[in-house]
Every structure is written in structure tokens, then in C-alpha cells.
């Protein structure tokens, strides 16, 4: 699948990405962006959900005083 064909609103399970794969992906995303997923469970059902949480955490990290 090409990146431009990816519909951000499409449920991940329709793309063949199961819950275990999401966990693994989030683990790698944490490393890539230097962020940490919050302890509370954030529902992740679509690619957009991943983008939203990453945006939020990156912004929080940037705004946090050292």
C-alpha cells in the first residue's frame, strides 16, 4: 500500500493491523519521536488517532519546561 492511498479515517483492523501490531507500532513510534504514551488508555482505532496522539504528545513535550 502506498502512503498516499492511506485514508486516515479508515479503521486499522480493516487494514489488517491487529491490536498487537498497534502496540508494537506505538512502541516504535515512542522511540522515533522521543515521546511516551500516557498511562491512561487512549483509544486507537484509526491512523488519524495515531497521528492525533503523536501530535499531542510532541506538542506537550515541546511546551514542557526543561
Amino acid at each position, binding site marked *: 500500500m502506498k502512503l498516499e492511498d492511506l485514508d486516515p479515517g479508515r479503521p486499522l483492523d480493516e487494514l489488517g493491523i491487529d491490536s*498487537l501490531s498497534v*502496540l*508494537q507500532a506505538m*512502541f516504535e513510534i*515512542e522511540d522515533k519521536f522521543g515521546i*511516551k504514551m500516557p498511562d491512561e488508555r487512549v483509544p486507537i482505532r484509526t491512523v488519524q488517532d495515531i497521528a492525533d496522539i503523536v501530535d499531542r504528545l510532541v506538542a506537550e513535550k515541546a511546551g514542557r519546561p526543561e
Partner: protein
Amino acid sequence: MNPRRVVVTGMGVVSPVGNDCNAFFDNLLAGRSGIRRLSSSFAARLVSDIGGAVDYDPAARFPKTKLPLLDRFSQFALEAAAQAIRDSGIEFTEAVKGRTGVFVGTGMGGSRTVESAYEEIFLHGKDRLPPYVVVRAMNNAAAGNISIDYGLRGPSVTYSTACSSSAVSIGEACRAIRHGYADAAIAGGAESLLTFGTIRAWEALRTLAVTDAEDPASSCRPFSKDRTGLVLGEGAGMVVLESLEHASARGARAYAELLGYGALSDAEHLTRPGLEGQVATMRQALADAGVAPDEVDYINAHGTATLAGDAIETAAIKRVFGAGAAKIPVSSSKSMHGHLMGATGAVEFIASVMAIQRGAVPPTANLRVPDPDCDLDYVPHRGREGVVVRTVMSNSFAFGGSNAVLIARAIGQC
């Protein structure tokens, strides 16, 4: 109802002496050892810095998306199972999938994954672990992965009886087919324990061989008076077992009939082998097979190369086979592939079945100094070819006192 007969129709091996059955057996016959000094960075800190490592490239075998899910022991299990399934020619129709089980033995399963995960949090100060640790590490990961990959919906079970794990898994699969719980099974074992923590733990037991400085490959010397202990190895062995009807109906070639299984306990000591338990288990397997002692043409010994173990097994064989013991070739292929722990029973069962198929008996390598306590025909140094081998026995005697013995016999076309 008479129990059904069970035949071996496919075999697969991943081992320190070859990653397919023919290479594996050719190396055994030639007396070639797969034991080397370990190349890992931690080897310098070990007293016993040798092992039987498998030469193989995981990235070439599994897709990048799948590999993070698989501990090395599961990778080996999947590879050996794939070979055995291909070799058997079995076709997994929906009906066959529903009647095929997976029986896997492993001693410590995904302990490599556990060890590296603990390293991360205890040593490297990480406060989180990758999400796949549990599913990689669990002991039934290998069986689960085989069952899922081929859609096999019969029983998927894991046996963990240390050194006899995969002799037990093959024996239990045989019973399940005999008694109608499955028509076919993928059975065997897998292990991959060559990690710093695990080798250190074995060193503490003082049962590992001292490295032979001049020739590390000859460090494991079963039945030789100068033996110093076992050498850890890694790998997997898998067989396809089928009921005789099932195999005949599809015109399968069978390597052998799995004729007898014995499984009894020493109930004596956690590590010291028990003479009486070994005798009883061999006798149970012979009775189960309906085979008289003088019909056995080859014994693949447990033969780990510990001082006590080899002498006790020799005494047990002499008790069971009487005066005839002197005439039976008995060898320990561990002298070349090392002790594959949870995989060793399966790999040695395969060596025994190959002995039938090839008409050749693998040797005991490195048997340099005769020991009066070990006075059988151990087929020293090189294999014996051009011999008639019809009935074979494979011994597995485990820590914890869990003994298992398998007997197989030649069979023609089903």
C-alpha cells in the same frame, strides 16, 4: 478396540551439525562435531565457553513483520516443522487441519527473550519493554505459531520435562493418534539457550564440559573416561506422525513405525539419574512396542557425557538387554551436536529413524579413553555404514527424573 498404528512420514532438523536431515545425518556419520567456542561477546567471561550454535540467518527465513513475534526457539520450531511437513507431502485440507495436532517439547521456551527483556529494565535502566515479550517468551509460543501458520486445529500442547521434553511430546502425540484424538501430528521440540545468563546458571551446576583448549570441537566426550560434562546446544527437530490408515490412504512414504513409548519417573533425585527408573522406562517402551530386547539393532543413548550419567545409563542398558547388550551398537550423537535440551529427544529420535532409513549407525565422537564403567559398543569416532537397522531405541533421561524412551521400526510403503 486395538489402538491404531502410528508412522513417521516427515522429518525436519535445525541443528549445530546441519539444517536439514541429510546434512545432519551425513555429518553425524562422518563424526563431525558442530561444537565450537562461542563467538558471543560474553564468551570471554565464561568458564565453559563452548556450545553447539546453529548457523542460520533469521532475516532470510522470516518476513520483517513477523520476526519481532518470534523468539529464536520458535523460529527453529517453525523451520523444522516446515521441513517435516514438506518432506511428508501431507496436504492440509480443512478436514485434515481439524484432525492434526501440534505437540512441542521445550525446556525453557523463550527464556532468551526474558533474559534480554530483564537486561533492558534491570541493567540498562529502561522503564518499558516491547509489547511482544510475553508472546515471544511463553513456552507454548512455538506450538501456537505452528498451529496458526498451518491452521491446525487439533490439540496444540507443550511439554516441558527438561532433557526429555521432545521425546515426551513425540510419545504423547503417538498416544493421541493411537487413541483417536488426532489422525496426524507435528511433534518434536525446540530450544535456544546459548545466552550468558543460562550458560552461567548451567556452569553453577558444574555439569558443563571443560573446554578442550587444543580442540574445542572435541570437548563433549560421552562414555570416554576423560569426559567432563555436557555441552549446551540449540536447535529443533520435528516429525510428522500419522495413523497408518491416514498415511496409506494418501499413499505416503513412511520412514518408520513409531512402535513403542515408555515414560516413567525416577522419583529419587532432581539431578542424579536413577538406574531403576531408566531400566523400567526402557522395559515399558519394549513392552509397548511388543519388541524383544534381542530385536533392537541400535540405541541412541541419552549419553550426555557427565561422569555419573553415562555409567548409570550403561548399567541400565546392560540390565535391560542382558548379555545381548554387548552386541548392540549404542551411541551418543550429543558428542557432535551437544545437548539440545528440550529439542534433544526429537533430534536424536530423527537420527535413530535416519539410521533405519540409511542402514547406518551414527558414532560417538571423541571416545578417546576406554572407561571400565562404560563397556558397550559405542561406535567410536566414525559411523558404521552398510548395516541392517530395523528396530531402534532412543533414550531421554531428564533432570527431575522424567524418563522417556521411544522405539521405532522399519516399515515399507504404507
